[in-house]
């Protein structure tokens, strides 16, 4: 290992890793996709051939070095291949969120200057054509699914499989050029560009180099002993850094198999069929699954219900300890084993976690109750803390040191420091190269020594050395009386209730806190059905007095538990409304990764917040909504404001004395 390795040899680019995998274990499965009701499989050797034809096809349509190729579509092998093929020809792949509306997409496309676009299907092609009217840079559109595409003008458009065939046919002409381009790839060349969803402002294009991606993949794979025989399910947005690292970075580094679901609707069935050994999901997925389990248990027979609750109580007590390898009495072990036979095992199998070896949740803080539920079943779910700018990994929880309230110790090769204001900084081999065409933001985020500001506030726990995140640094504030305001803490407690989908807490600088609550239509709808409550729409359901009553009781319980925390007792919810619409990414209220854009929500619903504070008992409001096809409409509603019982803090102090 004298000089920099490059090109087709070595492990310094994804094409090189692909080459290595195909040569060393060409017959092992690399990709599976369920299509026409069966899992279709591609080995590493086949994948290598497919990616190469795709790269030849890119040369055929004229892709130059340094061009950007946007990829918009659901998780499919062809889209992953397109990204690696783009790297082979020296281009930069830019995966985009497929559910973005055209105008959102237009900004990103213009910013990265993509000349080529790989679209999943007709829907995406239509959006790109709409954008193209104002954006002449797009030279060629490629698409995966041929359905409905016959009538389109194909002068600047091709099916992906057609350019693969063309590329193969012309391989004599392109082979030399392709090999040359592959050999020119260096460790510091751009591997991928990912747009951050951005809870504030416009998306920023994060440039990650081969070094960033491969070093991060290598370190994290070693950390969790990931091997070649892992199976993962790739269902998270391809534009998200997590999916890029797991489905491409680690998959290529370790050589494990990436499984793509048949469609978004079949994800849960496919999860069960694959039974991934290594799994990654944002808290939302675990919340939804838990909600579904709880709903189904409520519909179950009496005996099953009693068995479930009895053994879950036991699991809650000893399950987590067993998983961490802590000492547990023989009787408890025996009972846990029995529970595993009767309840935990079948439940894990139903959820698709029968083979679960290690998994992570990240992207947002997970409610401790939700986290403990999965761990108590013996599912080795851990937390990590990461960012696009860090190529995911900042801190991770090692096996045996998993807790709901921390996010673990610094990942291998990551240095951490906390500044005076409590903001977390890190430095690692995964630190991004730059924000594309945005030197100002690059400079304000990353200093000359390579330290990156996370924008999150936290502290390193004495003794264990684990990092604890308090909240987004800019979200943490002070109440009027000077006590700490950390909205996420309260929101997560509320979100554990299956009826509650989303919560936004307000109160920074005020004397008390108020909250917006979104009900979970699946859970509340099911409850309404069982209780013979008729409702015509989501809006009608949210205004139902009995729904409000239930939510009020949840808020009351949470207030009690919040009051017990000395530091945050000021964050109790005094008044709340159940919003008449779900917060939606199409309306800009949450990001595509489902994080609440606080500032935006605060501005948009200023009238409701004002009513929450001025003591009125209801508020009439009109809200603009964006439909899936980009059209706008509006809904108006009169929302009832509910006063929630709070625990007097003074009383708490007395109790504490």
């Amino acid at each position, binding site marked *: 290992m004298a000089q920099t390795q490059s090109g087709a040899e070595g492990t310094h680019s994804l094409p090189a890793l692909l080459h290595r995998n195909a040569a060393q274990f060409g017959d092992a499965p690399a990709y599976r996709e369920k299509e*026409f009701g069966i899992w279709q499989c591609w080995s590493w050797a086949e994948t290598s051939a497919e990616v190469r034809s795709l790269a030849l096809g890119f040369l055929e349509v004229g892709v130059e070095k340094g061009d950007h190729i946007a990829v918009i579509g659901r998780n499919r092998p062809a889209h992953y291949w397109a990204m690696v093929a783009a790297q082979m020809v020296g281009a930069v792949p830019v995966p985009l969120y497929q559910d973005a509306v055209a105008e959102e997409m237009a900004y990103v496309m213009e910013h990265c200057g993509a000349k080529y676009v790989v679209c999943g299907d007709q829907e995406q092609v239509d959006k790109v054509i709409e954008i193209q009217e104002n954006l002449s840079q797009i030279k060629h559109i490629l698409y995966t699914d041929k*359905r*409905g595409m*016959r*009538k389109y003008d194909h002068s600047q458009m091709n099916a992906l499989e057609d350019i693969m065939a063309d590329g193969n046919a012309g391989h004599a002409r392109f082979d030399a050029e392709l090999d040359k381009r592959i050999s020119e790839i260096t460790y510091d060349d751009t591997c991928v560009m990912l747009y951050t969803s951005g809870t504030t402002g416009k998306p920023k294009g994060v440039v990650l180099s081969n070094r960033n991606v491969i070093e991060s993949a290598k370190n994290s794979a070693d950390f969790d002993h990931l091997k070649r025989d892992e199976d993962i399910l790739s269902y998270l947005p391809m534009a998200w850094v997590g999916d890029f690292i797991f489905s491409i970075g680690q998959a290529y580094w370790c050589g494990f198999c990436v499984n793509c679901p*048949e469609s978004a609707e079949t994800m849960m069935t496919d999860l069960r069929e694959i039974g991934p050994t290594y799994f990654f999901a944002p808290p939302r997925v675990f919340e939804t699954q838990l909600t579904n389990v709880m709903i189904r248990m409520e519909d179950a027979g009496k005996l099953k219900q009693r068995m479930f609750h009895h053994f879950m109580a036991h699991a809650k007590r000893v399950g987590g300890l067993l998983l961490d390898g802590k000492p547990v009495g023989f009787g408890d072990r025996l009972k846990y084993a029995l529970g595993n036979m009767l309840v935990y095992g079948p439940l894990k199998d139903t959820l698709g976690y029968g083979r679960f070896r290690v998994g992570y949740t990240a992207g947002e803080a997970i409610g401790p109750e939700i986290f403990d539920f999965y761990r108590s079943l013996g599912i080795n779910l851990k937390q990590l803390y990461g960012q696009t700018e860090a190529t995911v990994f900042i801190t991770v929880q090692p096996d045996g040191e998993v807790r709901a309230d921390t996010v673990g110790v610094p990942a291998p090769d990551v240095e951490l420091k906390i500044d005076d204001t409590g903001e977390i900084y890190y430095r690692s081999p995964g630190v991004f190269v730059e924000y594309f065409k945005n030197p100002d933001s690059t400079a304000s985020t990353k200093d000359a020594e390579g330290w990156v500001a996370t924008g999150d506030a936290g502290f390193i726990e004495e003794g264990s050395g684990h990092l604890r995140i308090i909240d987004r640094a800019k979200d943490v504030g002070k109440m009027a009386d000077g006590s700490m305001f950390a909205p996420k803490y309260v929101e997560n407690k509320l979100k554990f209730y299956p009826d509650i989908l989303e919560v936004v807490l307000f109160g920074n600088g005020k004397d008390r806190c108020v909250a917006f609550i979104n009900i979970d239509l699946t859970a509340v709808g099911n409850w309404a059905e069982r209780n013979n409550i008729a409702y015509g729409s989501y809006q009608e359901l949210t205004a139902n007095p009995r729904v409000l009553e239930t939510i009020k009781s949840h808020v009351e319980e949470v207030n009690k538990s919040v009051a017990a925390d000395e530091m945050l007792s000021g964050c109790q919810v005094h008044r709340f409304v159940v919003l008449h619409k779900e917060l939606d990414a199409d309306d800009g209220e949450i990001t595509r990764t489902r994080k609440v854009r606080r500032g935006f929500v605060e501005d948009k619903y200023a009238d409701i917040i004002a009513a929450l504070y001025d003591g009125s008992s209801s508020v009439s409001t009109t809200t603009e909504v964006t439909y899936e096809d980009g059209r706008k409409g509006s809904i108006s509603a009169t929302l009832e404001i509910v006063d929630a019982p709070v625990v007097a803090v003074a009383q708490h102090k007395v109790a504490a004395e």
Partner: protein
Amino acid sequence: MLDAADGYVTEDGRQIGGVVMEMKNITLRFGGVVAIKDISFDIREGEIRAIIGPNGAGKSSMLNVISGFYVPQEGEVWFHGAPRPQMRPYEVARQGIARTFQNIALFEGMSVLDNVMTGRLNYMKTNIFQQALWKGKAEAEETENREAVEKIIDFLEIQHIRKTPVSRLPYGLKKRVELARALAAEPKLLLLDEPMAGMNVEEKEDMSRFVLDVNDEFGTTIALIEHDMGVVMDLSDRVVVMDYGRKIGDGTPDEVRNNQEVIDAYLGVSHD
């Protein structure tokens, strides 16, 4: 534009072929009631042909004549250039005609997959005993037919309900499953009886897209009955308008829209 014996080109550039089916002076009576009175029109290869009209105009009766379920007292149905004799339903199916029903006629207790598989019945050659033993010929046959069915499931985007019993599905999806079953027969002529009835706007849009896609992808000739004028005018290449069992208009959507008799039938005229 309609006079060429071997077809025409539609507005969006599709080539429509020769006559597949021709109604010649059809009259259908139930006792003293005349449901259809002396109607003639043709259906050409590859087109989407709509039959519209107010309630009780005889649309469904007309579709039943086309499908061979009703035999008209007068007139002849010509299919592929020859008069069609009276046929049993399975014979009609073998000729490449499939249909959906106004009020869904699926097997409620069976899964979506099984329902769609029934559409393949004409392609199964093994007998009940071979199927009971399953191994060998019957297995190969099922695999082959399952593949065809899976392509249709993929086409109509109903993968997520593949194993769901039909009785648990909402109305709009049931309609889609019915279409899937009809398509499984790989028909040359597809008859749709009010495919959009009772649907909300979104479901209608979905269904319209599927009808167009079927026509585009498989080149299937489609004859449909529909109430919703907006849908009809957007979808179809040519429209027959019926009122009280008579044909009062026939032509492209634009021609029909401007036909005074059609306007009268739909909006009503004052008789003073």
